[in-house]
């Protein structure tokens, strides 16, 4: 017979600020995701959905470099030939249906498809099996447009959801975050993203320097968008976005740190002589060999390599793809280890997506009313 317990009688009630409770809920999603994977069950089985350019260019090298941790058990695509091509080239078994057998065997489900098709694929998966013990890894921006945010409750059927915000995990930005923490520039006051960071990627990158604090108000002007965060931090996003041809400046209480690209040699040299703390691309014989970190007069090279992936490449476009792959590797590593992406879940991604879109589209100052945001989150995130 089961041991018996006396039925508790409520004798009090929760008395907290609704705003604080919702803020807590949003930030609690920055959960230590490493605990979501069984430590004693390595490698984790991965089912990949999608077979587009993003999969072939970034996901395949990223997952192959982490094959000790992740074992791809199948890839599904609505275009069977594409999946078959990946089976032939990468060795991931192409599957013709998202069936119960494959879903049940998967610990992780990776979705990288057109954002507008995400709700239907999610419904198909959830209709096939119980996903309460499965981890979903999904590409930004998760859903397409505001209307699709109504499908957000579908995500709550998974044990956890990680969003592949690889841009903020680009090696140069990871280096910048690391060095701004260690270079004694004091608490960060301003981050300027010059032609760097597309909409939500830019906001995510900017917020990553401020521990993902929320936006208090935004101001769209001729140059771009300024975001003022709750803690007083400022993110200046100077448009237009130009992939790797932009720069980033981080200004702290006691100093500053800069990332400059090497497209314009003159401006790169000028930055190196003007600033005390700089990170810049290091090119040798037309090949990018890593990033040069200059702090207080001393310089050292940070090269990146992981198995057969190296940052070395000859073309800027290829360098951009390599950075994306490295960023993606960091995202996958966050599932079993702590890094900045560990705190980036679908709520954060949707927040960045909608706040950045509205802020960029409307000229002038916008005050972000927490109560409305929290209400929206309440409506869209609860089952």
């Amino acid at each position, binding site marked *: 017979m089961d041991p018996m317990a006396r039925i508790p009688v409520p004798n009090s009630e929760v008395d907290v600020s609704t705003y604080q409770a919702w803020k*807590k809920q949003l930030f609690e999603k920055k959960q230590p995701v490493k*605990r979501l994977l069984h430590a004693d069950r390595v490698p984790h089985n991965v089912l990949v959905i999608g077979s587009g350019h993003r999969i072939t260019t970034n996901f395949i090298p990223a997952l192959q470099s982490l094959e000790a941790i992740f074992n791809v058990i199948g890839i599904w695509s609505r275009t069977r030939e594409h999946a078959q091509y990946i089976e032939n080239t990468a060795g991931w078994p192409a599957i013709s249906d998202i069936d119960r057998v494959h879903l049940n065997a998967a610990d992780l489900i990776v979705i990288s498809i057109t954002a507008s098709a995400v709700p239907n694929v999610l419904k198909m998966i959830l209709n096939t099996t119980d996903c309460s013990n499965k981890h979903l890894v999904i590409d930004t921006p998760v859903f397409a447009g505001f209307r699709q945010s109504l499908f957000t409750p579908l995500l709550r059927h998974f044990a956890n959801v990680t969003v592949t915000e690889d841009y903020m995990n680009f090696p140069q930005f990871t280096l910048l975050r690391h060095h701004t923490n260690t270079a004694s520039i004091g608490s960060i006051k301003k981050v300027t993203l010059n032609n760097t960071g597309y909409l939500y990627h830019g906001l995510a990158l900017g917020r990553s320097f401020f521990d993902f604090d929320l936006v208090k108000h935004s101001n769209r002007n001729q140059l771009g968008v300024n975001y003022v965060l709750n803690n007083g931090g400022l993110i200046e996003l100077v448009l237009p976005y130009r992939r790797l041809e932009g720069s980033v400046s981080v200004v702290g209480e006691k100093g500053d740190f800069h990332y400059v690209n090497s497209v314009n040699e003159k401006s790169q040299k000028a930055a190196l002589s003007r600033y005390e703390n700089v990170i810049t691309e290091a090119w040798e014989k037309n090949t990018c060999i890593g990033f040069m970190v200059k702090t207080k007069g001393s310089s050292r090279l940070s090269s990146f390599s992981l198995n057969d992936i190296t940052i070395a490449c000859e073309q800027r476009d290829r360098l951009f793809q390599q950075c994306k792959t490295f960023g993606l590797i960091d995202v996958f590593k966050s599932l079993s280890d702590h890094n900045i992406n560990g705190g980036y879940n679908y709520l954060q991604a949707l927040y960045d997506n909608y706040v950045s879109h509205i802020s960029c589209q409307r000229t002038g100052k916008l005050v972000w009313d927490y109560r409305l945001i929290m209400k929206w989150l309440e409506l869209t995130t609860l089952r």
Partner: protein
Amino acid sequence: MINNNASQAWLSVPDSLRRYGLALIDDLYTKESIQSWNCDIDQYFKHTPPTERRYLNASELHSLGITKQILNKPLLNLINGLMPDAALYHFHFYDIPGMSNSPHIHGDNGLKGWHRDDDCFFGWEKHRFHFVSFFIYLTDVGLDSGPFEIAPLNKDQPLKNRTPSTKVLGPPGSNFIFDRTFWHRANPNLSSSNRRVIKLSFQNNYLPNDRIGLEEFATLKRSDLVASPIIKQWLMI
């Protein structure tokens, strides 16, 4: 145990935990045992100023000779019935000093101490328990002496203002289990005396457990407690 209007209705422990996140167990220990443990602890801390927070880890509790009494047969059966693959990861005594204005744990989180424990985010499988804690009050706990409080809101539910909650009140020896994935908190101990508690926490043994390897548990692993196969399993030997 709960308050003056305590209900006398009963529910199985798993059902109570699923529904309320809390199971109020009837006394597993005699008054004499509690009294004797308090004396031993007083003796241990006789040179510690009353204002200082007292804490005893598993090894120190064992040195007082009370671990065997705490891990008695009813407790073993209770936890084993609830979680057949349990592993221990907390086993300690601590007190909350009196005259405090804020909860001793997460008191500054903007939610008056309401929290779900960080280590519990793994708890996804809804049909089973992943993280539970067992409390034994060693002092009389009233409304002002820092009672444990829990709301019937599990990991899928956000903390909501005005949700009816339960403050667990009771005399020395009162004991209860709670699901750590539910929203809970320690109330501030406004009274003049310290609130004393012995706490044991359990999780499934297949989940990451970075505490069982601690030196404090090494003493238990070397002791005669491991004669019990259940305790042996709890210590992951």
